[in-house]
């Protein structure tokens, strides 16, 4: 369901943990070491975002705005959805190609560096350097 939680962010940094109950659609994409078996690409233009074997699957409850918004919608009031599974990297230079939005609240959303579709992920400016790419918003293909 569409909802909005960009304007009512809590003071606490969202936590993340290893995703244990891996959904069926992700089982074949994850290696024994917990890393991605396939490259992570933009689902629209196939631009390479992360190489294979660079990111770990984690669970993190996160609000992501939808890529398309109503015209003249304020960013803080953007509609979106809460998603749970992410590919996690800890060094921003692990990314092959990625764009960072301006900060809203405490977060920076990630986008495709080529077609600029997004958000495909998020990072929190308060926390340690953790970067999260939504498994739902990218393509897994080499």
């Amino acid at each position, binding site marked *: 369901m569409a909802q909005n939680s960009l304007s009512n962010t809590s003071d606490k940094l969202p936590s993340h943990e290893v995703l244990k109950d891996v959904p069926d659609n992700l089982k074949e994409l994850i290696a024994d070491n917990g890393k991605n078996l396939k490259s992570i690409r933009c689902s629209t233009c196939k631009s390479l975002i992360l190489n294979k074997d660079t990111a770990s699957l984690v669970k993190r409850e996160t609000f992501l705005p939808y890529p398309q918004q*109503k015209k003249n919608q304020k960013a803080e009031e953007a509609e979106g959805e809460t998603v749970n599974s992410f590919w996690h990297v800890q060094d921003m230079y692990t990314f092959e190609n990625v*764009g960072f939005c301006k900060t809203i609240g405490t977060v920076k959303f990630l986008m495709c560096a080529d077609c600029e579709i997004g958000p495909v992920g998020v990072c929190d400016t308060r926390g340690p350097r953790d970067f999260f790419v939504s498994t739902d918003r990218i393509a897994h293909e080499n």
Partner: protein
Amino acid sequence: MSRSYDYLFKLLLIGDSGVGKTCVLFRFSEDAFNATFISTIGIDFKIRTIEIDAKKIKLQIWDTAGQERFRTITTAYYRGAMGIMLVYDITNERSFQNINNWIKNIAEHASADVEKMILGNKCDMEDKRKVSKERGENLAVENGIKFMETSAKQSHNVEEAFFTLARDIKAKMDKKLQQEKTPDVVQPGKDHKHKKSKWFCNIL
């Protein structure tokens, strides 16, 4: 964890308002009926990976805030920048004149060995041209830096410009590393290639 790249360069785009800096770095989004979330918030920077001489180079490329003028851009802004694209608009004489002011500003505030390049943007607008290509070339020669005309609108020369700037930074860095290797030179304490990402602290 081992590093998956050989070089990391921070690049900035600088120039008068309206010359097309944002368009050089980002795509045109001209859909009048739909708004994307990304275009509403705006983009801060991009990371791009390129390959030169079989070396993997990460580029971190920053746009600059629109209303900034050379008078207000100071040292904090240039921190860590290894390459600067100086952009003017070939249909705007004043933006060309101001390149000299931007160069002065860089000399005052940026690291002395920052690599520069001049871009004459909007070269698709030949009918409105005010600044000849030759004047652009001459200005670049006077300052001992490279020059290209670009069109962000037609993606003409944009990728080439970033490659050229990156190649020049790499050449400069390789030369420096070569000098550091000679035994009678004291090793500097800082190793640029292993610098931790600290962009959260120097957000503009």
